[in-house]
């Protein structure tokens, strides 16, 4: 076994904390506790848990609208996450940003734009900061298969390539952009990796039902980036288990295929493996689950008890003083 037990437990905890966050999000949404529209990322957790296992202090991160729970891996406090999700004054943006914007600057997160693709170059900017500082940090930027067809993604990749910026572009290919299958909307098999050559960038593909496979592929690329080889692209293939948004019945796809993919559950795969490798027992797994869930329940209770933002809050973050 090439990984330490410590490492594996860490990856597992990350994976699980995203899954449980995503499930919790669906749950409280169904209860009417979320004012906005959520996009469940269940089934896609391994992309984040695997890639982010390569991170180190000083790195920067641009995540997406799915799975938003990934912010948790980076250390965003659950209180501000649920606060933001529920539109409360205790959210990181005082409940004004919302479901797409649960982030923490102190953990290296640069923010997110709901206008998909417009924020990819934000990761270039973070990488520019790294390059100017001369450290071996990396700027990680996640985007979707559908988003890969947007122009700003092309521009951001091009600029990262010519400036040799330390950026890892991670395409979370969940095979759909709302109702549009990647097999229709993207003219290549791997929306990330198959486009890397257009910028002279190295690329890898990974099976994102397996967090460790993702980690291995990411590690190879990240090592190169830290060593100064410039940007790279990682393609992570998984499947969106639920509809695009809650309420979407996903009639545009074959339920049998969905069933097949659900069987390749990245959390279950990791749990089976850790038990097989004697890293964790079923009881320990259950304990971790309970721990995470109870942390979340506390955070939700906290958020629910938090005041709504006030009219004064409205203008507070518009301009810096």
């Amino acid at each position, binding site marked *: 076994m090439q990984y330490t037990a410590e490492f594996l437990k860490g990856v597992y905890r990350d994976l699980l904390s995203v899954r449980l966050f995503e499930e919790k999000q669906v749950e409280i949404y169904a209860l009417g506790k979320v004012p906005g529209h959520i996009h469940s990322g269940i089934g896609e957790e391994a992309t984040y848990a695997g890639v982010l296992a390569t991170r180190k202090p000083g790195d920067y991160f641009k995540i997406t609208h799915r799975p938003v729970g990934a912010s948790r891996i980076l250390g965003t406090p659950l209180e501000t996450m649920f606060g933001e999700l529920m539109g409360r004054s205790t959210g990181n943006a005082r409940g004004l*940003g919302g479901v797409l914007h649960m982030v923490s600057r102190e953990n290296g997160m640069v923010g997110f734009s709901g206008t998909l693709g417009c924020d990819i170059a934000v990761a270039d900017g973070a990488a520019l900061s790294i390059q100017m500082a001369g450290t071996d940090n990396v700027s990680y930027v996640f985007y979707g298969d559908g988003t890969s067809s947007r122009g700003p993604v092309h521009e951001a990749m091009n600029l990262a390539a010519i400036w040799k910026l330390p950026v890892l572009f991670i395409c979370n290919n969940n095979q759909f952009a709302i109702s549009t299958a990647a097999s229709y*909307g993207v003219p290549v098999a791997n929306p990330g990796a198959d486009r890397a050559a257009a910028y002279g960038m190295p690329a890898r593909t990974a099976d994102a039902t397996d967090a460790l496979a993702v980690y291995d592929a990411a590690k190879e690329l990240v090592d190169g980036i830290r060593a100064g080889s410039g940007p790279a692209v990682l393609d992570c293939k998984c499947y969106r288990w639920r509809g695009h948004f809650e309420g979407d019945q996903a009639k545009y796809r074959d339920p049998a295929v969905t069933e097949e993919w659900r069987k390749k559950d990245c959390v279950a795969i990791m749990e089976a493996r850790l038990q097989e490798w004697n890293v964790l027992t079923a009881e320990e797994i259950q304990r971790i689950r309970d721990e995470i869930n109870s942390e979340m329940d506390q955070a939700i209770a906290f958020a629910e008890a938090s005041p709504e*933002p006030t009219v004064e809050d409205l203008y507070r973050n518009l301009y810096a003083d």
Partner: protein
Amino acid sequence: MQTTYLQAVGAALQEEMRRDDKVLIFGEDVAEFGNIFGVTRGMLEEFGPQRVRNTSISETAIIGTALGAAVTGLRPVAELMYADFTMVAFSEIFHCVAKWRFMHGEAYKVPLVIRCAMGSSFGAGAEHSNCVESLFMHAPGLTIISPTTPYDAKGLLKSAIRSDNPVLFCEHKQLYQTKGEVPDGDYTIPIGVADVKRPGTDVTVVAVGLMVRRALEAAELLQKEGISVEVIDPRTLVPFDKETVFQSLRKTHHVVVAEESNKTAGIGAELAAMIQEEMYDELDGPIGRVAALDIPIPYNIALEKYVIPDAGRIAEAVRAQLARNC
């Protein structure tokens, strides 16, 4: 027949596609899915995959393709899922679509319609709630339509599709499920003609989009106070039907403009500036502007509601107009 605004838009598309095989529609998720709001549901089945096409997430290509198709003889109806996304294809709309004929000569015709779903809709946040008409009013060459009833939506969309000029057609998300009388079959409403949605004698309210409904509510409220409000819905912002507004003003001498977008440099800015410039002597006071606060739309719904004008705020502005008379 009572139909929803959404059905009215769908019917206009369907009837025009039946009438003219040069009409085709494309955009993100318009095919199997029938658009995320359901507007184009059934179209793929009726008109087939050549005339009802999904695109990739490529708004600049959607607009550019529509322009090229229009210049070469088709009559495309391009869809941008949210009006906010006009901003990712802003140059294509502002520099290309709007000016194409001007820059290339009269041999170039641009019969295209850009449809988009606009406005606030409860928790959609800062990037999915914007109204964009005022930005494009600054682009000479475009026609801009913002219908507010099922009847207007159907009649104006048909006119838009038949127009040889590029049209930005803004459908309000909060109006999709509202109902109204729509006659069966073909009719059109001329572009550039305002509609008096409620006659009145004391104050003219020029309201756009969702604010037409709120202005009508306000008028109802104010009637109880003995104030008679005339509500005018321009329906098309470019070209703007000045005469209908001026006529009303000659009677009321008071104007309030109500819109949903940010106040600064919004629709009300242009309308107020224009009206005071051209009709100063008919005015008994300053033109009131009711608009969203100058802030991005917040996610928190109570604050979203606070930022966007409601009937109460319109009524207040009307009362302020009359208060000046004393």
